[in-house]
């Protein structure tokens, strides 16, 4: 990751910290981190949204605490302390969801506890929060969390629309729609994930080709201009 590279440049503004994870380095579609919940809970838009919010909370709270304690934590025990901190906020989330709604708790199942093992959270604590002051670290974590939530809802939305004919529980197609059951089964997660990745890589290649063409054109202009002048 280009963490060491970016730290050579001027420190990014708080706004840049926040927007980094939303799109430019989206955790799911660009960094491809945290695939377990991404594929497992995205059977409906509401599950995806709740999982995303839960992860965002854990990510932001853990990154804040890691950042506050970063000067006090010796390098030798940093992974152990990060895991303890992350596990703490996962437990808090677990209790909170039980208090908010048991239905939601049932739907998210074991995946709440598994946020501990979501490599996105540990990855951001280690690669970013441990070297950044609290405000910047928290903003970045919130941005990353929202980027993660957005991606989950994009996958979960497509799966729910095709697999259940509804979006956030609102039926879209009427009674005669035959749902694509495969979309709410595990393979559907891979299909939709692959579809989005394909779309983004096509878009990125287009943009790249356009940029290349433009710079080539500019070069050509420069050369011809030079020739003309001579």
């Amino acid at each position, binding site marked *: 990751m280009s963490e*060491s590279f970016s*730290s*050579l440049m001027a420190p990014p503004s708080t706004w840049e910290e926040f927007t980094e994870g939303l799109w430019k380095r989206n955790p799911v579609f660009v960094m491809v981190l945290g695939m377990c919940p991404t594929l497992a809970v995205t*059977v409906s838009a509401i599950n995806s949204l709740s999982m995303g919010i839960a992860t965002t909370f854990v990510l932001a709270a853990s990154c804040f*605490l890691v950042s506050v*304690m970063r*000067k*006090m*934590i*010796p*390098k*030798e*025990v940093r992974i*152990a*302390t990060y895991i*303890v*901190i992350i*596990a*703490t*906020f996962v*437990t*808090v989330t677990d*209790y*909170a969801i*039980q*208090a*908010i*709604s*048991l*239905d939601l708790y*049932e739907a998210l*199942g074991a995946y709440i506890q598994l946020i501990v093992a979501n490599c996105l959270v540990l990855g951001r604590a280690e690669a970013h929060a441990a*070297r950044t002051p609290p405000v910047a670290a928290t903003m970045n974590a919130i941005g990353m969390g929202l980027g993660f939530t957005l991606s989950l809802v994009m996958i979960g939305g497509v799966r729910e629309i095709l*697999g*259940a004919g509804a979006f956030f529980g609102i039926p879209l197609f009427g009674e005669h729609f035959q*749902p694509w*059951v495969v979309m*709410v*089964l595990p393979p559907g997660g891979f299909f939709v994930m692959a579809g989005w990745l394909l779309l983004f890589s096509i878009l990125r290649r287009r943009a790249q080709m356009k940029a290349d063409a433009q710079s080539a054109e500019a070069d050509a202009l420069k050369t011809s201009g030079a020739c003309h002048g001579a």
Partner: protein
Amino acid sequence: MSAPDTTSQPQPTDALAHATPTFTLLRALSVVSAVCGLIIVASYLLTLDRAKDNRRLASERAVVKVLPNAKTVKPFLALANGDIVPAGEGDPPTGAIRFYAAYDEKGRLDGIAAEGAAKGYADIVRVMFGYRKECQCIVGIGVVSMRETPGIGDKILTDKDFLANFKALDVQLNEDLTSLANEVKVVKHGTKSQPWQIDAISGTTITSRAVGKGINEAAQVLLPRLVPKIDRLEKP
């Protein structure tokens, strides 16, 4: 981990450059654990009441689903020695079965609801069933939890023909009140001929069987203890 810093940090923080004394390590871990412990305990205490209420509401909702006339619901335990006691806090003693007595708005006993569980296709299927003593039969079921295949296993929630099995599923006891007169049995789709049989959904046989097995096992144990004493539950 005293190996040279492999991450290409331009200016490694000086504390990280050398091996840290054991005391510092211990102090760091203790402080982190203490802070985290406090956070966990605080959030546990803050959410405890709400979580308990939610759990109680969820089981009451499940009871109302199988016994729609229920206005108040009280949990009881049927102990292994045949006694019926109100269910209190904490874990029930071994061999006890939890059930709910449902009372209608006039305070009369409307029916009994209890839970059965059996292995389905993906995981345990837990069903709540409603029992009425007037007909000695099961009058409705609801699923408490399951992880069956969507679109296949979850037909047990929606299939009208399957749910019709539970409008009056016979669970009479035999003459000496020790077990069901006829075991509740799941039969192949379209072959139901007796009131104690359950007509399976074709294509959803495994989940259908799990429902039948869960009900049978729970009823076989609960009803012999409950039926002789059911009159005691008349008043809430």
